[in-house]
């Protein structure tokens, strides 16, 4: 039994890393722009399908790099044309806008690529389990975790050491002052949104290899990401990362004892965090309570 639990904790970390990648993109956008991006799952789907279309021309590795950039460009356009118009308004506006956008993306995907799921194969070198005993750690899953780790480290380095990154962090805390200091807040938000969407696109490519493609694949991944943000604490990227890993592990361990409750456990955790520590594990005090 202890071995089974250990298996599931490791496995939960793998799943959680993926939730975290999704949630960090969501969190970036939320922190700086105050937009709760419901279409985030949609952008994940776009990333996945673009990589499917590009794979015959660029191969798996080429598509892995190009598809997220294309997704980010689409995200940038969406921000310029639509999202920008609802900044500074009641959050309900951005909620409705991105909610509608999510439908449009889902139906658009169905129109272009069809309602039926599409098969995606990962390179043969990655598709095998590493050992007989730890059969659930496949090359691809390890690769996914490694990619998530690299991306997150890269993101944190960018936010800490580059001028734009520092501005994004400053803007998260006090956008008014940042703006008063003469920084172009519009451009900053554009860039920030595109980076968030890039992460969604990348998550989409990784998810396609793991799960295959279908137009609704974003729905099932969006909720855990929201919960990761709430559990980890709004306003804190480290908290979001932690939240993603935590719910992944919790779902994994619950599956050992109560398989049918493995989805519900995330909501239970969210409820407990909200009752005991409403700002989340690492959330900024006062900022969002």
């Amino acid at each position, binding site marked *: 039994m202890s071995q089974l639990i250990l298996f599931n904790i490791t496995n939960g970390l793998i799943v959680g890393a993926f939730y975290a990648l999704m949630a960090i993109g969501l969190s970036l956008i939320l922190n700086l722009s105050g937009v709760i991006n419901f279409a985030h799952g949609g952008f994940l789907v776009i990333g996945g399908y673009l990589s499917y279309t590009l794979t015959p021309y660029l191969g798996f590795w080429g598509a892995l790099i190009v598809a997220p950039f294309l997704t980010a460009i689409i995200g940038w356009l969406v921000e310029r044309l639509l999202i920008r118009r609802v900044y500074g308004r009641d959050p309900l506006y951005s909620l409705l806008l991105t909610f509608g956008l999510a439908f449009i993306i889902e139906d658009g995907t169905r129109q272009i690529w069809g309602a039926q799921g599409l098969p995606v194969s990962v390179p043969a070198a990655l598709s095998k389990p590493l050992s007989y005993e730890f059969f659930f750690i496949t090359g691809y899953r390890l690769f996914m975790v490694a990619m998530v780790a690299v991306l997150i480290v890269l993101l944190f380095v960018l936010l800490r050491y580059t001028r734009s990154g520092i501005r994004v962090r400053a803007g998260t805390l006090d956008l008014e002052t940042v703006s008063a200091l003469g920084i172009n807040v519009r451009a900053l938000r554009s860039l920030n949104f595109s980076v968030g969407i890039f992460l969604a696109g990348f998550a989409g490519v990784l998810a396609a290899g793991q799960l295959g493609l279908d137009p609704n694949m974003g729905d099932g991944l969006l909720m855990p990401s929201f919960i990761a943000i709430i559990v980890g604490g709004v306003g804190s990227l480290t908290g979001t990362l932690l939240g993603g890993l935590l719910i992944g592990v919790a779902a994994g361990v619950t599956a*050992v004892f109560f398989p049918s409750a493995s989805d519900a456990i995330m909501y239970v955790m969210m409820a407990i965090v909200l009752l005991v520590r409403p700002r989340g594990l690492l959330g900024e005090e006062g900022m969002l309570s």
Partner: protein
Amino acid sequence: MVSRIIARPVNRRTILKSAAAAGALQIASPFVISARAADNIKIGLDNPLTGTYAAPGKNEEIGCQLAVDQINAKGGILGRKIELLSEDSTSGDAGAAVQKARKLIERDKIDFLVGNVNSALAQAIAQVSNEKGVLHIVPGGHTDPITGKDCKWNVFRVCNTTRMEANAVSQLLYTKYGKKWHFITPDYAFGHTLYQGCEANLKKLGGTITGNELTPLGITDFSSYLIKARAANPDVLVVLVQGNDMVNCLKQISQFGIDKQIHVAGTQQELEAVEAMPPEARVGVWMFEWYWKQAGANPGLDKFVSEIRKRTGKVPTARTWFGYVTIHAYALACEKAKTIEAKTVAKALGDMELPDDVKCQPNKVYFRGGDHQLMLSAFIGELMSKGDGDPENLFKVNSVVSGDSIAPSVAETGCQMQMPA
């Protein structure tokens, strides 16, 4: 200026509300509006066009439309043209499906209702059609009670019951692969009755169950269930989930190499799911409710396959066939009854045998009068990863057994049919 660009802070409550709305996103759906004419016979299709069952829903619609076009080309039903009105029931929202059924019946005044892929939704809209006295065929919702204890004079079903599916493979799996079974079951009406059927059969055969993993519908990660299943060390891993869940589950089974250690099998398998899997995930022993490639000459089958290929560029699936059979059966019953009045047509449909060009398969295929269940063959065999020279042929049919031989008797289904006077 500054105040315009600075966002209002988002508070925790807003995020909570939006999380609740994200849940709603999965079940809400747009309307589909179709054109209509006055004196035509109207058939309402209340089936998923969005969500997890969008692909089977779409294929049933394609099959329905082919039958409608064929019948209209021959002058329609009793000299009247027929038209198909299609509504999106969503994949899992019974409220939406019922609302669409009411809209079709009350506003569009349809003569005949078709739906639904989802068992729970099929049960919900059967209540409506029964209350309104509209003839109703369920093309692809499998849970037992529809033609069992909840059977109704106006409701017929084309696809198998879950019990028939369990019966089709249980004996084979037991004798060929072993007596310790572990289940992965979807946690809703379809999965529950399917599991009960398998469980009862296995007990009768003398086998044991090492565990049953109830999984939420639409879950993307099966690894924790698979870890548990492998730890239980069964002879057979029986996968009962469907649709995208089936794709994800088999994909993870093959990535983990579990299919090399434990026999992987299940009851119902569908071409939609198999086509969405990468070749290495196409493993195991299953039953198809209908398959496009059959041994022996069958002109009706060849014509059906080529017509569908002309329309979609692909071969038909069992879902396409369900839609096709549903409309043709209705037309045949109307012609036999010489009216479209629901009660008379329902009587004509009971015990009606389907002709060769409609049934597209060997064995006798007919609606059983006692419970209104279609007795259709089960195609039992193995998945082929790449097809045997034909990339579209992904299933090797080992045997085709008749519906009679796998169906429980009418008395066993619990159906007490009350036909109106």
